[in-house]
């Protein structure tokens, strides 16, 4: 069962969301998938038409998703931003600070990265150097 990780821990993903791949989106698309190497110029719509953007992490070592998330937020996206894929609990604070609202992981990953370990990193507002230095609106 896919798990959604938030500041409060795990909750199983029970809603089915139909994501459109970003470069195939139309004016009525509400949910898009962004790959880690997305070029936002290929998204034909307006960011704020979207309810949810999901950004892929093919490997936890691929940090482009964090830059993409930041970019999307800087450009004014106010909707829901979700990270999906191979993300480990130690990256939770990074994800939240980059603008993600939550993280979607497989049950497999959830088994090896139990809820307690994600909650261990959920105080992401503390010890936050960049916010203290003036980078506090994404």
């Amino acid at each position, binding site marked *: 069962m896919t798990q959604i990780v938030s500041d409060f821990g795990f909750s199983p993903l029970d809603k089915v969301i139909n994501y459109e791949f970003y470069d195939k989106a139309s004016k009525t698309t509400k949910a898009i998938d962004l790959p880690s190497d997305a070029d936002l110029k290929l998204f034909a719509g307006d960011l704020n038409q979207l309810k949810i953007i999901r950004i892929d992490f093919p490997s936890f070592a691929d940090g482009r998703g*964090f830059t993409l998330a930041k970019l999307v937020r*800087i450009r004014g996206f106010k909707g829901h931003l979700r990270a999906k894929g191979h993300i480990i609990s*130690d990256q939770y604070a990074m994800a939240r600070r980059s603008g993600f609202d939550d993280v979607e992981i497989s049950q497999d990953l959830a088994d090896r990265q139990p809820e307690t370990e994600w909650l*261990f*990193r959920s105080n992401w507002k*503390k010890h936050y150097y960049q916010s*203290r*230095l*003036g980078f506090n609106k994404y």
Partner: protein
Amino acid sequence: MYNYTEFDDAFIKARNSQFRNQVKRRINGNLTEDEFKPLRLMNGLYLQLHAYMLRVAIPYGTLDSAQMEKLALIADRWDKGYGHFTTRQNVQFNWPKLTDVPDILDALAEVKMHAIQTSGNTIRNVTADHFSGAAADEVTDPRPYAELIRQWSTDHPEFQFLPRKFKVAVTGSKNDRAVIRAHDIGLRALLRNGKIGFEVIIGGGLGRSPMIGKVINTFLPEADLLPYLEAVVSVWNTLGRRDNKYKARIKITVHEHGVEKIKQLVEDRYNEILSTFSGVNHELLEEIKSAFAPPVFKSKGTKYFDIAYKENAAFRSWVDTNTHTHKISNYSIATVSLKAHGKTPGDATSDQMRQIANIARHYSHDQIRISHEQNIILPHVHKSDLPKVYNLLKSKQLNTANIGLISDIIACPGMDYCALATARSIPIAQEISMRFDELKLEHEVGHIQIKISGCINACGHHHVGHIGILGLDRAGVENYQITLGGDATETARIGDRAGPGFSATQIVPAIERVILTYLKVRLNKHENFIHTYQRLGIAPFKQALYPKESQSPKIQKKTYAA
């Protein structure tokens, strides 16, 4: 120097607690090695040839006596009684046990030290001119900015999983002692109409494809420093190659896309970031700057110095090679050589560390610096204290008078320690050093920089050595290639490859031939090796290195500084 606030202390405490937990999860199997590896790298823990290696950060190469004493304690308690100072102003311990590392990190935290981001695909230790705050040729002390950049880059949410490592160096002087032109970002502080700004150089780097950095901004105002850096790293995080780790550094990205294109992308991103940047908290910035205020210098005569200088030849020799003019008259910048003939370059025993701490506390306003040349600097020594300092150094074999001479060699750990190495570098450094000591030619030769790397990653900076030596594996045997005419200063230049490599037994005689040729063809003893090379080119040296080959005139491709 910067005093850690409660914020910094709390940060390190939380970070150490996270790492302790990560080690536990690795040992109990909740983290695979693939998952644990980037996490341990983010905390400076490498796996090397014979053991783990912990790289402790020494931010911009600055530390005080309490911190140096703690390093000595760590060496004694959890390692083998010594530490190695590196070409990025850090210190390495070669024998820690994984299970001890959380305790070592806690011990470091007691003196506000850590190993955060000294490894991994992160922004690494920001290095700085080792004479910062002391040299007369400075426009401003660059270290407050290095501290600002350190805080900005620490645990930066966007930049923990970059395509590769990212290195920043800063200087406040036109005379570049921080090798800024061979860094991913190099910053030179400037003064224009009474305001501080920065020349920004990007895409420098050594290693497989050495390149001198390119200027993308001739004057970046102080207030724009962080958002601009954020733009550079963001652009690179997006564009930097992830398919080939040998082509991932920003120097390749600049090379592949062109500097003008990258500059434009950076400007565009910078403008977007500005809209979300509220400016560095003014109080915070002032707090940082005031922490780097100069010490209260003493005002004394130099009688003891004058007498000792006149009467003690050994002391005089040491002063002539190892001290540098300080901006305050009657003060001196003293360099402690960690290059005693036949010793491992950059290593200090715990005993030696404690002595240096002791000297710094009493005679250098409690300040110590580590230079990228793997020596230790006492930045603020009153001349009248130099004789005492010299004797204290001498009692621990720290008085070698060879700074800037041929035995002041930079050498990476090489295959004696490093899992990446293709050959050993330490024995070569030792042999060259002992050879020229034996020949009694060091002072005759004068200023020359030999740099040795044990593999193509160039941690020994061989590309920018006047003489560079690169150790490779040729058909299962150690083989050493020579480069000539490199330059690590503001006239930065990548050295020219001399020709086929030499075996471990032939390399030192080869270096000897180069040096003897220099002594023969130089204009006079005031013309340093590098100037002779610039005047005559590689030909005479190539001839000396490969005497049996016929020399056909070759067009030498020279790389010039941006």
